[in-house]
């Protein structure tokens, strides 16, 4: 295999880890409350803008921007849960889809109105230069994003499966009434789930802001990527999202390299449709 191809695959894996990170937020909320957040991609977009503002106002890099974006988005998640989700969850399907879809528009065009439609970007070497490693050349910003995203996604999996908080959340997902009888407050658990899910998008946004184009409509593309990842990985499954995210990252960068940059989105969308048609339960989901 040529070095270029390895380079492309490594780049895809690093980006894919970030996809996995924000998609695990979507899958958590979907699996727990059976609600699809159509504003998920726009949460990532908000995270990117938070990192951008941190840089332009305070000159801070990802060390300041990433935690702050996580915190801001986690707060947004909790607010959204109490102001909107808690009520539309009980409503008809139309209300659920309209509610989060309207939220997506609200966020996307508020940012558009405030920052304009121009492509913004962070300075090239905000994280560091480019490293040579066994013949591969990897930008520090991408390496940082990939490694942090991978670790946090794994941490999220451990949080959900190995801690009492995770068990409580699982209990609420299984049966709200039964969980309530065991002394678990569904409301609190679901709010925490939204904080985690939105916080993950904030972190992911801040991480990719260092090398991605920053534009209000980026959330639309990223939102579809999250749908693809979740439907591929099986909804509710963080490990599934991790595998699917890495896979999509690689497929996207390979098709970008082999066929052409404009077709990489088309390939991912078509793959999504094929999966919905032939295997809607996902790669690792139960039938």
């Amino acid at each position, binding site marked *: 295999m040529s070095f270029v191809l390895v380079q492309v695959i490594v780049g895809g894996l690093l980006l894919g880890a970030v996809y996995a990170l924000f998609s695990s937020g979507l899958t958590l909320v979907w699996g727990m409350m059976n609600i*699809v957040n*159509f504003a998920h991609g726009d949460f990532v977009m908000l995270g990117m803008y938070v990192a951008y503002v941190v840089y332009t106002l305070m000159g801070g890099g990802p060390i300041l921007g990433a935690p702050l974006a996580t915190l801001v988005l986690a707060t947004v998640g909790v607010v959204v849960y109490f102001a*909107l989700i808690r*009520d*539309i969850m009980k*409503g*008809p*399907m*139309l*209300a*659920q*889809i*309209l*509610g989060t*879809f*309207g*939220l*997506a*528009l*609200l*966020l*996307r*065009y*508020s940012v*558009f*109105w405030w920052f304009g*439609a121009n492509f913004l970007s962070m300075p090239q070497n905000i994280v560091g230069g480019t490293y040579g490693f066994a013949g591969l050349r990897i930008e520090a910003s991408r390496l940082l994003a990939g490694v942090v995203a991978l670790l946090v996604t794994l941490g999220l999996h451990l949080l959900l499966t190995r801690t009492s908080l995770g068990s409580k959340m699982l209990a609420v997902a299984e049966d709200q009434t039964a969980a309530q009888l065991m002394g678990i407050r569904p409301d609190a658990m679901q709010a925490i789930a939204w904080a985690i899910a939105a916080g993950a998008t904030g972190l992911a946004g801040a991480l990719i802001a260092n090398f991605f184009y920053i534009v209000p409509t980026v959330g*639309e593309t990223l939102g*579809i990527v999250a*749908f*693809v990842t979740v*439907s591929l990985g099986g909804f509710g499954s963080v490990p599934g999202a991790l595998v699917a995210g890495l896979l999509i990252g690689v497929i996207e960068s390979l098709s970008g390299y082999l066929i052409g940059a*404009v*077709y990489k*989105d*088309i390939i991912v*969308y*078509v793959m*999504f*449709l094929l999966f*919905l*048609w*032939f295997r*809607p339960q996902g790669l690792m989901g139960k039938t």
Partner: protein
Amino acid sequence: MRRLIWLSVVAAIAIAYPLLLSSPFQQRLGALVLLYAIAASAWNIVGGYAGQVSVGHVVFFGCGAYAAMGSYAKFGLSPLFGVPGGIVIAVGLAAIIGVPTLRLSGHYFSMATIAVAETMRLIVTNTDWLGAAVGLSGPTVPRNIFDLSFLSSLPYYYLFLVILAVTLFITWWMTNSRMGFYLRAIKDSERAARSLGAPASRTKLYAYMLSAAFTSVAGALYAMMFGFVDPESGLGILISVKILIMAALGGAGLLFGPLVGAAILVPLEEISNSWLGGRGAGLTFVLYGAIIVLIARFQPGGLLSLFTRRRKPTSDTGASHAP
């Protein structure tokens, strides 16, 4: 009887409007309201009555718009000749999307519709034969009346009015047919409807295909009125958004809901655009987003459901989905 009186009042207002308020701006506004009302009423068939929220309806709109402009730009024919072709493509596409996804829970259907619309937009943007990013244009100077290219908005107004009436009549007829009863049963509880023998997937598919056909007609009319179509105006996600929000604001699943929604939102957008200029486009969609969120949160049945519920608790126009 009371309904008949209301209906004739609405019809009389609609017919007299462009004659009473006859400035070009007002006539154009009226025509646009009717055009979006056609598209939103078409969405209503699948989104309101069948309860399947399509977020990518613009793809059918684009089928019609591109077929109409294509028949002129590629074959030198009147855009009218493209209309049947646009309908066929739209209905076929609806079948391809609907057959696999309408079996699944409604979320999957919504996501699939977004993905299909975005895929189509990207493909068309990169296809030179369809004009790529520039799009296709209609006849600049009308050769004869069949080009449906008029300077005044008045002919468009009455054309759209007739087609809206046809759309609404067929929707009304559908709701009172066997299919309408199936749809209502499915929307209340799909499992119960299935167990009683209602062919749920097939009924939803028919509703989706019917909706696609009318949306395609709306797209063709849009392209004829504006004289061109490009990927943004024919396949952009924001057109889907407009269609959806108009139906939802007025009342999804109510016959006149989409018309009410269009009559409120089209003037709102025109006014905000003319006041705020280019910058206003962003603000208009902030407002749209806020409206959708508020409807979803407080009045999922739309504005008209405020009246239907008070008048008749067991209304036959589907107040069942009110909170």
